[in-house]
């Protein structure tokens, strides 16, 4: 295992060597049911010996070590073995279960490197001790278990020994490193260690922590001043726990999570809002307008890439207006730290969209490039005007440019299909109607959001002839369509369009029918990352919304959470491959999907966004 691969873990602190994806047959000899919280450590030993023939297999604590086609290598570090402090929420039980059972070999590792400075953070030392004791017992039990278990244990032991050696080696390296940066805070020691080893693992939690603690920082760390990584991997319990400690929003993790999407956050909806509303008047670190925007995101009042970005930037502008530099601090560093804290709050309310991420990068680069000679009020006005300029140039004027390009592709007697509700597409349709073109629109919609209905109302109110259908009828209606107009949340460097879930299906059917697909997207939403599927980065919505079908008296899935065999999945975004896209219309003109990296290359450096 190379150093750069991030550790993957499911089901709490335990590191299963293999993860099951999909269905599998129960193995009578291995334990599988959820275990009580870590405090009751001796209990699992009893369970170990109980035959578990009848236990439901498809639970999400798959630490049972059954072979499956998907083998995920165990992580190298033991720190996320330490299960989080026993949390009252039921959801956490699921996460922290079976910690003792499988991690017995791991704890050896933990024990060995736990002595090292870089790993033993104070809050966790206690739990480590506890678990060690508990696990020692379990281990003995485990050794005397039935034969298949023994086999696995020994394999695990071998790997554990390997890892222990590896970890010891890297720990020795860290010890040197830590020795060099003498006198630094403990978190700072943790940070170099972590960054040395886990380059890929997002440093959201540690970054934010260190930012808040220290204002003095060597310049090469400046890159880490960027917003906390918006794609923090949530199957890493250690990170999740750390993030939770700093969280403003108290939310409980959802139960019955789909295994494949473990790396994405999912919280029980509706639990955060009352709590946040009550805290509205005690928000010392948080600016009220930022708080307000966060609440608007949570409730779903503000949605859509442009809308969210504009709301966020306006809130930041207010915050900058009211900002005063504390004594003995430089404006740029302190303000950047403040913006980062606002951003992490917003992430907790709802994960960032790519457009928001780019806007934040822009803002931070502007702050960083402020000349030192400026007085505070001058700097603030400059930043406020920068924000205003960004919104005007990159969003408002860009939309106008897109409309002027796209209008050349709308001819008389066209049938235009659009999916969901995109602000730019709506503008194009409005403008075409104003110019007197003769066309009609097909609005395709999908549950659970049903965003197309609002768009339909507005179009019909303007007098545009519309047809409305759901996405299941897309192949039925596609033969009458001449052009498909879609919006996008972002376009990635290989031409993949990252947009509302369902867009990929619409594009695929259009491609099959030979209908050109035009994607309209402002250039500030382009991103240099590449995504090959819709799984590795996405957003999970509230699964309860799927249950509620209007007009049905009976709610069949009412108690879905109690059923361990059932998981509901509500995705928000999906990735459309570039082969299905005929043309991308941006404020820079009409481009083929292969030219997105060219725009990113040519225009990012000019405008110094990064």
């Amino acid at each position, binding site marked *: 295992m190379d150093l750069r691969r991030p550790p993957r873990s499911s089901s709490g602190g335990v590191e299963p060597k293999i993860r099951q994806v999909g269905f599998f047959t129960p193995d009578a000899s291995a334990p599988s049911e959820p275990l009580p919280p870590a405090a009751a450590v001796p209990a699992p030993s009893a369970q170990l010996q109980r035959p578990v023939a009848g236990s439901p297999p498809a639970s999400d604590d798959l630490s049972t070590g059954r072979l499956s086609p998907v083998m995920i290598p165990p992580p190298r570090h033991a720190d996320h073995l330490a299960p989080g402090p026993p949390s009252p929420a039921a959801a956490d039980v699921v996460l922290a279960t079976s910690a003792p059972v499988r991690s017995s070999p791991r704890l050896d590792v933990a024990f060995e490197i736990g002595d090292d400075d870089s790993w033993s953070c104070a809050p966790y030392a206690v739990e480590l001790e506890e678990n060690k004791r508990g696990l020692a017992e379990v281990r003995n039990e485990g050794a005397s278990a039935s034969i298949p278990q023994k086999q696995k244990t020994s394999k695990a032991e071998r790997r554990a020994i390997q890892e222990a050696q590896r970890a010891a080696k890297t720990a020795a390296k860290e010890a040197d490193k830590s020795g060099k940066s003498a006198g630094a805070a403990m978190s700072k020691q943790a940070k170099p260690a972590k960054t040395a080893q886990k380059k890929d693992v997002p440093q959201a939690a540690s970054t934010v922590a260190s930012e808040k603690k220290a204002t003095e920082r060597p310049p090469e760390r400046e890159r880490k001043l960027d917003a906390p990584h918006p794609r923090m991997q949530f199957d890493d319990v250690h990170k999740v726990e750390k993030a939770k400690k700093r969280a403003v929003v108290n939310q409980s993790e959802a139960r019955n999570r789909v295994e494949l999407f473990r790396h994405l956050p999912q919280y029980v909806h509706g639990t955060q809002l009352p709590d946040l509303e009550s805290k509205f008047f005690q928000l010392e670190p948080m600016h009220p307008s930022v708080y307000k925007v966060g609440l608007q995101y949570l409730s779903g009042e503000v949605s859509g890439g442009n809308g969210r970005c504009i709301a966020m930037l306006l809130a930041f502008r207010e915050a900058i207006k009211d900002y005063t530099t504390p004594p003995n601090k430089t404006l740029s560093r302190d303000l950047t730290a403040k913006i980062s804290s606002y951003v992490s709050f917003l992430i907790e309310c709802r994960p960032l969209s790519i457009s928001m991420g780019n806007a934040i990068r822009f803002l931070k680069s502007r702050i960083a490039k402020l000349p030192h000679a400026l007085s505070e009020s001058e700097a603030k006005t400059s930043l406020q005007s920068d924000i205003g300029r960004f919104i005007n140039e990159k969003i408002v004027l860009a939309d106008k440019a897109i409309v002027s390009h796209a209008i050349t592709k709308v001819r008389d007697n066209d049938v235009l299909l659009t999916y969901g509700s995109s602000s730019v597409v709506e503008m194009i349709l409005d403008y075409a109607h104003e110019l007197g073109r003769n066309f009609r629109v097909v609005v395709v919609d999908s549950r659970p959001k049903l965003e197309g209905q609002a768009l339909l109302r507005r179009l019909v109110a303007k007098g545009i002839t519309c047809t409305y259908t759901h996405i299941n009828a897309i192949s039925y209606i596609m033969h009458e369509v001449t052009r498909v107009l879609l919006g996008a949340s972002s376009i990635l460097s290989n031409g993949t369009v990252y947009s509302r879930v369902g867009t990929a299906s619409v594009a695929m059917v259009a491609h099959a029918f030979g209908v050109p697909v035009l994607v309209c997207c402002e250039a500030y939403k382009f991103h240099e990352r590449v995504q090959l599927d819709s799984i590795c980065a996405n957003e999970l919505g509230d699964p309860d919304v799927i249950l509620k079908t209007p007009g049905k008296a009976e709610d069949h899935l009412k108690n879905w959470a109690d059923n361990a065999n059932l998981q509901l999945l509500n995705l928000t975004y999906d990735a459309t491959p570039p082969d299905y896209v005929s*043309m991308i219309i941006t404020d820079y003109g*009409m481009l*083929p999907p292969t030219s997105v990296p060219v725009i990113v290359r040519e225009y990012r450096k000019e405008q110094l966004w990064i």
Partner: protein
Amino acid sequence: MEPDAAQNPSPVPPPISAYYQTRAEHHAVVSSDWLAHAAAAAAAFPPGADAADAAALPPPPSSPGAGGGVIEEFNFWRRKPEAAEAVAAIMALAAVIRSSRATTMMELEIELKKASDKLKSWDATSISLSAACDLFMRFVTRTSHLEHEKFDAAKSRLIERGEKFGEISLKARKTIAMLSQDFIYDGCTILVHGYSRVVLEVLKLAASNRKLFRVLCTEGRPDRTGLRMSNELAALGIPVKVLIDSAVAYSMDEVDMVFVGADGVVESGGIINMMGTYQIALVAYSMNKPVYVAAESYKFARLYPLDQKDMTPAHRPIDFGVPVPTGVEVETSARDYTPPQYLTLLLTDLGVLTPSVVSDELIQLYL
């Protein structure tokens, strides 16, 4: 911008595209019927143009002065059979700079812009013409931001750049021919469509390098330029076989590669070329034969057709040999659009490119 492509076919036959008129003049086999058409069309042209025979060349205008001069200059260059229309435009624009009486940079740029617009409006259907005009403007005005004390120095620099650009364009064909030599190997069979000067240059060079290959040439109706092409190839000693356009699929299995030219290369990486190119590309693609496009870089245009009808229509008269029955409509479009997925490589004076690079070049140039 493109005119709104919502025109319905009018009862009056659409105007004949001047671009294809020129090509026909230079390369086609002249038939009496065609002569009649051309004579009628010539009436609409500026007085300097003679129809049909290229014998009477009007002398180059000695005192250009007025704006009409650019058209005359352009026609002078255009009459030469070897000159591409775009190169003619570039030379004409360079002449405009030379003969301009402007005293400031801005004035000169405005004059140039006016001349360029005039040229473009003279024939709205020619893609390479408008692309070359835009390119020239861009190429030249980029240097106007350089520091120059005196206007005269700047002007002479512009003239120099303009003429250099013209030279590069003239030499473009030779560069392309050189680059294509690696693709032609001994014993190969090449399919060409109609008459393309660039492709002819490529094959000429290959023949002079003593490569052994044979050529299948389509007839290229309606102007039957393929016959002229086969004539020239035979004169070079290359074994050539003429096919009617419908026989392309029939012969495709014995073909090793397809070489076509282009009237314009669009932003998606596809090409706009003589009618029939799309068909050939589709057949070649389905039989896994590579399609190579030989196109000069000044043909890169900022257009993006989504389908065949998404371009400015360019019509030409079609002579069936027998009168067309009344009440029957004839498809007279002179060109079609080949999407980039059917093209293998573009051989240009910028190098050997894949279709997706076209947009990259255009962005760097225009944005």
